[in-house]
C-alpha cells in the first residue's frame, strides 16, 4: 500500500452544459504506484487530458474518490492542494508553456520561488546542464528550438524533486527527433532515478515503451496492458 501514489475509485468528471451533460471521465478506477511509467492513450476527446488534470490535482472530480499520496483530494482546501502540487507533482505540457519573459534558468527557478525555497541556482543550472542546455541557460524561450523548450519545461518540472511527473502529450509539438529525445529523457528519469511518470500520447511507438498502457475511450478505460518491452 505504501508505494501507491494515486488511487482513483469510480471517479467521474461531468461537464454540465445548458443543453447536455458531457461525461469526460466516467466510473474510472486506477492505481499508480511509485516508480511506474504509465502511458494514457486514446483518441482525441477520449478524456486523456482531463484524467491527467484530475490526477495532477489541477481539476476537481464530480464523483468518486481520489487519493493522492494518501490524501483525499476532494476534502482538501485550495491552499492544501497548492502545497500538495508544489511539493509532489511536476507538470510538462504539450506546448511547453514557459514564461516568455523569463530565461531558461529563471523558468526553472520559478517553482522554487513559489515553494519559498531559497533559489538554488546550482540545482537549476545543473538540471539544465544535465538536459543538455548548458549553453541556453540565459536564453529566452523564443531563442530556443521546440525540443530545447520542452527540455527546459522538464527541468522546471523536476526542480522541486517531485514524486510524480505528469506529461501531457510532451512530444506532440515536436519533430520526430526531438520527440524521441524528450521521450528518452522521461524514460531515463523513470528507469535511473525511479521517478514516477504519467504521460498522455497519441504515439503508439512511445506508448508501447511505457511500463503500463491505459487506453481510454469516451472517458472510460477500455483496456490496460503492461508493456512487454519494459522489464
Amino acid at each position, binding site marked *: 500500500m505504501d508505494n501507491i501514489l494515486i488511487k482513483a475509485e469510480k471517479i467521474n468528471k461531468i461537464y454540465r452544459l445548458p443543453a447536455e451533460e458531457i461525461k469526460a471521465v466516467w466510473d474510472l478506477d486506477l492505481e499508480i504506484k511509485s516508480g511506474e511509467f504509465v502511458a494514457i492513450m486514446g483518441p482525441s476527446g477520449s478524456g486523456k487530458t482531463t484524467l491527467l488534470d484530475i490526477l495532477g490535482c*489541477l481539476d476537481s472530480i464530480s464523483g468518486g474518490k481520489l487519493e493522492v499520496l494518501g490524501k483525499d483530494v476532494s476534502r482538501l482546501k485550495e491552499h492544501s492542494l497548492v502545497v500538495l502540487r508544489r511539493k509532489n507533482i511536476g*507538470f510538462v505540457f504539450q506546448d511547453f*508553456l514557459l514564461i*516568455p*519573459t*523569463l530565461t531558461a534558468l529563471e523558468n526553472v527557478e520559478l517553482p522554487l520561488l*513559489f*515553494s519559498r525555497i531559497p533559489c538554488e541556482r546550482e540545482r537549476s543550472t545543473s538540471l539544465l546542464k544535465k538536459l543538455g542546455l548548458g549553453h541556453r541557460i540565459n536564453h529566452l524561450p523564443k531563442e530556443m528550438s521546440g525540443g530545447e523548450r520542452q527540455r527546459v519545461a522538464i527541468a522546471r518540472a523536476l526542480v522541486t524533486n517531485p514524486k510524480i511527473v505528469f506529461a501531457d502529450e510532451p512530444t506532440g509539438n515536436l519533430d520526430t527527433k526531438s520527440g524521441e529525445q524528450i521521450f528518452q529523457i522521461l524514460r531515463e528519469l523513470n528507469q535511473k532515478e525511479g521517478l514516477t511518470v504519467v504521460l498522455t500520447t497519441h504515439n503508439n511507438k512511445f506508448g508501447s515503451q511505457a511500463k503500463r498502457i491505459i487506453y481510454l475511450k469516451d472517458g472510460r478505460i477500455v483496456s490496460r496492458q503492461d508493456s512487454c518491452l519494459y522489464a
Partner: protein
Amino acid sequence: MKLVSVAFKNLQRKKIRSVLTIGGVAIAVAVLVSLMGFDAGYQRALTGDIDKMGYQVLVTAKGCPYEAATMMLKGGGGLRYMEQAVFDKIVKDPRIDKITPQLVATEFDKDRQNGQGGIVLYMGIDDSYLKLKPWVKFRSGGWFSGAQADEAIIGYEAAELEQRVPGDQIFIPNLNKVLKVVGIFERTGTQDDGIVYLPLKSSQRIFNLPDKLTGIGIKLKDIGSLSAFEEALYNEPGIQVISMAEVKGTIFNLISSAKVMTNSVAIIAILIAVIGVVNTILMSVFERTKEIGVMKAIGASRLDIFRIIWLETTLICVIGGFLGDIFAIFGAQAVEYILRHILPYAPGGKLVLITPILLTGSFIGAIVMGLIAGIYPAFRASSMRPVEAIRLGD
C-alpha cells in the same frame, strides 16, 4: 529571482503600453504636484506681499474697499482722493504705532515697453514710509534732499527696466516734468519694485492734487485694538478703513473657490490615471491567462499571483510617481510663467512652491494609487482556476 523581477519583466513585454500607462500616471502626479504647489505658493506669496506692505490698516477714500485694496496691492492708484486733513486728524490717535500718507498717481508713457506704451506708477511718500517698511534699503543713492524737491527714488525693477542710476533725469510725459533720480531701492520682491517714488509734497504739486492723498497706511501698537480703531473712524466722512487681515481673508476666500476647481482637475487626472492602470493590467492579465494557469500548476498560490499582479501596478505607479515629481520640478518654471500671464494679480515671489514634503507626499500617493488600482486585476488573476486558465487561455 524574486517576484518583483517577474513583475518587472512582465511590464517589459508590451513596452509601449507600459510606457503610455506610466506616462499617464506621471502626468497625473505632475498636475497634482503643480496644482498643490500653486496653492501653497500663491498663498505664501500673497501673504508675503500683504505683510510687506508694512501696515495692518489702510485708510482710503470711500469706494469699493476691495478695489482700493487691490489697487494698493498692485501699487496702483486708488482713483479716489481724500483730504490731507484726514491724515492730520488720525495721526494724533494714541493707538497708532506708525503711520504713512501716500499719494498714488499714474501716467501713460508711450515710450515704455519698446514703444508699445505702458502705465508708470508714481507714489508720493514722506520719510515715515521707511519707518513702516524698515526692510526697504537703498541699492544706490539715498533719500530726497527736501520735501519739495523734484527728485525721484526708483524701485528695483523700474530702475532695471529703464537702466536708471542716481544722477539720471527722468521725464514725466504729459506733464513735461523732469525729475532727478537720487536713489534706487533694493529689490523687495513685491509690487513696490515697479514704482517711481517722489516726495509727497512734490507729487501733490506736480500732479496738481494739492492736499490730497490716496491712502494712509497704519500700523497699530496693538492689533487687538483694531475693531475699536475702525469704529472710531467709522463716522469720519469720505473715508473707509480696510483691515489687511480682512483683505487677506477675502482674497483667500476667492482663491478657495479656484482651489475647488484646481483640486477637481487634479482628482479627475488621478481618476483617469487609475482607470488607465487598471485597464492596462487587466488587459495584461487576460492576455496571460494561460501563463497564470501554468504558474498555479507549478506551485503558485493565490497570494503569489495576487502579489505579482499587485507588484506590476505598484511598479507602474512608483515609476510614474517618480517621473511625475521630476516633471513637476522642471515644469514649475513653465507653470509659473503661464500663471503670471493668466492671473489678474500675481504676487511677488514663487507662485508654484514645490517642497520636499509635497514631492514625497505625492510619491507616496502614487504608490497608494498603485496598490488600490492593482486590487481588482490582482483579484481576477488570483481567482483563476489553473485547469481552466491553461485549457481555455488560448
